[in-house]
């Protein structure tokens, strides 16, 4: 790129400070800076260690109500599934010919449950639940799976501390795994 070559030639032998300026000049200068407030508004990802979980808390008890109002039409009254995925049961079936993959039997991280409910559920109105209700309904689904007790109240700290039954059930990609020639 001639523009860059010219700049580079001009700066040959220049001091380190000017070299840094040249590097900055290498950019196209397209776009504008994202502000910390904008980033905070957009960045809804929850890490598997629970990082970025918001303040607030929710109980299994409250979750039962939220689930009945917002979730049961697709996922069944007790999370047994319907139009939507089955959410409950299946622990111990993964090595069988009919594995049942649910939050309780399959999902490796509870933080992912919070992340997914908040970003994508309910399907007709994603991102409409309050953080408190997302904590509550997460707690309810985990309690239906026996992962947390029926009197549990989850917040950032306690949700991050939940160890899912299938936490260690995943392996890296070994492919190519068929050696036929």
């Amino acid at each position, binding site marked *: 790129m001639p523009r860059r070559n010219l700049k580079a030639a001009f700066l040959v032998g220049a001091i380190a400070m000017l070299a840094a300026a040249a590097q900055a000049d290498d950019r196209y200068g397209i776009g504008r800076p994202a502000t910390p407030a904008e980033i905070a508004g957009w960045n809804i990802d929850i*890490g598997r260690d629970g990082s970025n979980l918001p303040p607030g808390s929710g109980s299994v008890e409250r979750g039962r109500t939220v689930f009945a109002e917002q979730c049961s039409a697709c996922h069944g009254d007790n999370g047994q599934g319907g139009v939507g995925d089955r959410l409950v049961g299946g622990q111990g079936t993964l090595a069988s*010919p009919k594995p049942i993959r649910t939050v309780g039997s399959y999902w*490796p991280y509870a933080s992912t449950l919070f992340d997914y409910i908040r*970003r994508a559920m309910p399907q007709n109105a*994603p991102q409409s639940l309050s953080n408190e209700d997302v904590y509550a309904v997460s707690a309810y689904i985990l309690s239906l799976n026996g992962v947390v007790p029926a009197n549990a109240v989850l917040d950032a700290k306690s949700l991050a501390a939940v160890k899912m039954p299938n936490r260690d059930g995943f*392996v*890296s*990609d070994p*492919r190519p795994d068929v050696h036929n020639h």
Partner: protein
Amino acid sequence: MDESARRSDGKPALWHAIGSREGRRQEHLEDAAAIYLASGRTPLQELDGIITPNGLFYERHHGGVPTIDPAEHRLMLHGMVDRPLVLTMEDIRRFPSQSRIHFLECSGNPVYTKPYGKTASDLVGLLSCAEWTGVPLKTVLDEAGLQAGAKWVVAEGGDAAALTRSIPIEKCLDDAMLVYSQNGERLRPQQGYPLRLLLPGFEGNMNVKWLRRLKVTAEPAYSREETSKYTDPMPDGTSREFTFYMEAKSIITRPSGGQKLTTHGFHEITGIAWSGHGKIKSVEISLDEGKSWQQAELQEPVLTRALTRFRLPWHWDGTPAVIQSRAIDETGYTQPTLAELVKVRGLNSFYHNNAIWPWRIDANGEVTNAQA
């Protein structure tokens, strides 16, 4: 039910549309009804060459097809970068552009268990190929300045699912693209208008559509899609995670299931081959139930991570036959049989089935799935 009949017909995006406002309104109503029709297939057995027309490109979505005004759309790039950025579509189109031809394939194409499909489209119709235009992702990452320790880029869509997948940084700095046009026209809504990620050779769902955010991280997001959904359960109860690549595969599209040879004599056998690991090196065809194999002719150009058309002249004397193709890619990998795959992976997995699919031709010329 014929899957290809269920797809929506895929019109140009609203902002590049031809037709009346009433027509557009009708289209939106159809889109709303189509929310639960989560996929549509490409009629591979009807197509020639390697390029899929945009209206026939396969579709798969996880929360409906959003209608996004490009003037309002923003891409945020943040995380482990020196300069977090907000980019408009106009900004993105200012970067130096590239056009490249690549296939795109859904990872569940097809599943391992019966009932197997009748036609080439039923079997592997979640596969298409196009010329994509956009900006290399590396260009935009360099603009923001990657920090030390950056290992992943978490991509988020602007659909109702806010679909999220984590991409290894090596791929992002290699051939990943931010794409805004497909086969010369702007992306259609079903393909992610106004902006999508393209990761040549990686499973379809990672090529996040309606792309609105890229976060550079040290760790994957472990999103729902990459833990509970697009993972591959094995017979021992473990599951493979982060299974990105689509391995080498091929299928004969003519003659293929549902078609009929109406005359004895000359027939051209033709089909398509592809590999997520690079170029197709050769395609072999068997006319005798897999006992012997011969080289097919490859149509130029043979491009990396693109469909490659193959052909073999054939004289059919009316004897029943089983015909099949197998692809070998530039890494030396050979497309396996279904039995070879199942021996290693069992039947619990939905994804990455790249088996050979044989067709049976009976004495009347009727072509059916020999595996069914």
